[in-house]
């Protein structure tokens, strides 16, 4: 078991305004899997992703990567955990505006002892010719590709994607999903992707459906579709 989640609960607010966001999540993900988490707004999928990413805490339960439990970690160890194991992609690209594309990717590479070759990666991402441009000179899709580059350049064990296509149009979204699948195939990272786009489940190895803070479905997708062939 590569990633293991056991009895994860989380609530927000107190008293009358207390909301149980996660109500005992148990699941596991194998190394190299693409796991897509689906669910309506408020189902707890982003909160779960943040807990896996070590940027939010659960009330109970634990998360373990290769047997290493995050709940036992202090602030420094959590930072090291994120640095070593995780790559993050958000709906907002959050690129550094006054660094060019290559430098933005290097910001990720700096965190790793054995990063991927930045130029090779830029070529894979189709950004090599734009590498000297600033983020605001690129389209949304290109900016998101840069964000993906920044996340995967350190060759993380797990790539966490929070609505990575949420701000993109149909074609660009497909391009990004294709890229994530390629990266997964090429580098063997485990991908955990949160989305409310139901069609994306078809490219996943594992599909987890959440509602009201509970897993309603958790299954292996036997009929995986190539990202390029997704339709919605």
């Amino acid at each position: 078991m590569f990633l293991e989640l056991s009895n994860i609960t989380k609530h927000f607010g107190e008293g009358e305004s207390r909301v149980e966001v996660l109500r005992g999540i148990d699941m596991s993900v194998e190394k190299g899997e693409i796991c897509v988490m689906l669910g309506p707004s408020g189902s707890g999928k982003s909160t779960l992703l943040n807990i896996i990413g070590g940027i939010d805490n659960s009330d109970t339960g634990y998360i373990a990567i290769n047997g290493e439990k995050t709940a036992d970690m202090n602030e420094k160890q959590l930072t090291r955990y994120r640095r070593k194991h995780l790559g993050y992609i958000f709906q907002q690209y959050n690129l550094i505006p006054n660094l060019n594309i290559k430098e933005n990717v290097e910001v990720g590479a700096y965190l790793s002892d054995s990063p991927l070759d930045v130029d090779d990666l830029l070529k894979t991402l189709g950004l090599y010719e734009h590498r000297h441009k600033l983020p605001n000179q690129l389209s949304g899709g290109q900016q998101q590709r840069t964000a993906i580059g920044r996340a995967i350049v350190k060759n993380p064990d797990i790539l966490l994607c929070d609505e990575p296509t949420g701000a993109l149009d149909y074609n660009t979204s497909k391009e990004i999903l294709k890229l994530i699948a390629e990266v997964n195939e090429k580098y063997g990272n485990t991908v955990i992707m949160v989305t409310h786009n139901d069609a994306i489940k078809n490219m996943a190895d594992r599909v987890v459906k959440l509602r009201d803070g509970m897993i309603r479905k958790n299954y292996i997708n036997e009929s995986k579709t190539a990202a390029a062939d997704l339709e919605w």
Partner: protein
Amino acid sequence: MRNPLLKRIPRELRSEFGKQLAIFLFFVLVISAASGFFVADDSLIKAYDESFEKYNIEDGNFELNEQADAALLSDIEEAGGIKAYKNFYKQEETEGFESKLRIYAERSEIDRVCLMEGELPAADNEIAVDRLYANNHDLKQGSTIELADTTLTVSGIVALSDYSALFENPTDLMFDNDKFGVGIMTQAGFDALRDNHIHYIYSWKYNESPDDNAEAKDMSEELIKVIAARAQLTGFIPEYTNQAIIFTGNDMTGDESSMVAFLYITIVILAFVFSITTDSTITQEAGVIGTLRASGYSRGELLRHYLIVPMITLVLAAIIGNVLGYTLLQSFFAKTYYGSYSLPTYNVLFNASAFVMTTVIPFAIMLVINVVTLMSKLRLSPLRFIRHDLSRRRKKKAFRLNTKLPIMVRFRLRIIFQNLPNYITLIVGSFLANAILLFGMVFEPMLNNYQDMVKDNMLAQNIYILKADAESSSSSAEKGSMFSLTSKEEGYAEEDIPIYGIKQDSDYVRFDHGAKDVTVSSAYREKYKLSEGDTITLYQKYGDRKYELRVGGFYEYPAALAIFADLDKIEEMFPDEQKSTVILSDSKLTDIDDKLIAATISESDLTKTSRQLIRSMNGLMRIFLAFGIVMFILVIYLLAKIIIEKNAQSISMTKILGYTNREINGLYIHSTTFVALGSIIFTIPLSSFVIGKVIEIVFRSYPGYFEYSVSPLTLIEAGLIGAGAYALTALLLTRKVKKIHLADALKNVE
């Protein structure tokens, strides 16, 4: 791999070039001024301190009413444990230009002189004069000075080691290098001068030097008893109370403390401005920071990253500031001191403490303030950065504003409350800038006003203090008496208080002669905060008697601390005191034998404090004025700019909604205008009050009194300068608002 975030640094510096340059130049200005000052000050203090040994400066001097014979002198030396040196002077008024010249015979053993230009006098009609006195009267080698019955030729320019500050009287509030000077002649030349105003001064050195001022005080108190028991003392000045010797050292040391305070206050304000700027950058870059933290960047890495720009700016400014300080500005400050004091020559010394004070400590202040600000912000979780939720307090309900207020007023109020930390720093910065500005502005009018007040309230145009009783046939002459007691109030300088005996129907000083109480000058009242009925304790100058005097009323005399009592009762009130005859007269008296006049007090004596302060400080005050304006503009601009930047999206959105630039300025700039102008109105009187209090406290450690008064007109002028400076700032802000594009509202918040 080098941290790629470092590549942002030059770009950040370039993209905010104007702002960074302004801050950098301001730092350079402050640090170079401080560095130059500290280097000059410390080098001069060292030269000054060394002069005590090099020129064998006295441990004190006493004056006798007549020349002591050898037996008396040796008796005093033996009983007092001292070596006494004859150090007589003769003081004459110059003709051709108004001044009093105090002439000593050549000195080889005590209080030796430093020759700065020309030659020491060789012929009997030659004199070497003090450098400042020479400069102020355009005297050079070969110039002549006319005295009452002789003409002297200047052979050289000197500094007398016991007159580093040209105090005519050691208890004066301020020296006077314009109307008072000192010089030396050969012994034969000195002897040939008339003896009308000879003073039998003996300087002494202890056989065993005291370790500190406390011991020197004890020793001098013993010595005074020894001398008073053997001769008639007319003066006794231990070195540690002799303003002519110690004032320069005290002033230079005091100036250093003021400069340290000034430097650190400015650095603290700038550090806060920087931390607010950085805080605003962090808010703008919250998403990026959240992502970097989520990706594994540690808090420490980001902290160091955001510290680089302010620290680099400070370090570069410190390097350049120190270079400028050591080269250009130290000579400027040294010249300023040489313009006020008769100091010996000096060498520029590398000053480790100046480096610590101008570089290490400001670096530490900047570091601490910025680290604290950044840490408190970066302590937030990555998630909160990603969500742009950076408020440290949990959001409560939005506070309510009265809906009867027009929406634009409420909008402005919301902007003010949203930016409260910026506005608070703006108010504090504005207060300090105004204090500096006001300090630069009030000085000259205040001194002129003081001078006028002194002139309008003189006891008489001329006061003659006589060695022995004499009569004048002039109808304006009015006889009285005078002696001095010493005030030793805790927290104040020890000082001599003249007590005048005034006749009942005086034409010059009118007060109630009925009671046995004394009448006190207004200067005395103000300095010691006296009220009618209070008791003043004064001490005999050369004895043990103590007098408790009840304040019966006040007499408007702002020029000096003085007490007035009825002439007929004064003998009965102070039977043990040796009194001098005083003649008050509005006209100059010509029928009194010059030999009988011990001293005269005229308008120029009473106004010398203000004259000297104007001469010494005026240049410096202009620098303060300019500095205050620059600081005011800088602080307001930087903070107001942050407010505009922080609200760039909202401004863009209001543009999309159809608001004109004018209306947007009305919202975002007028809020700042309201706070800036409000802070000017509020902080100018506050600054004036604080300056007044500081002056009052500072002057407690000096003898005499100097009234701080500022006309409302000066305060209004300061306000208008502040408003003008703000208008310039507002113009720059208006341009900034104009530059915000409509599309900004649609962009990602980065």
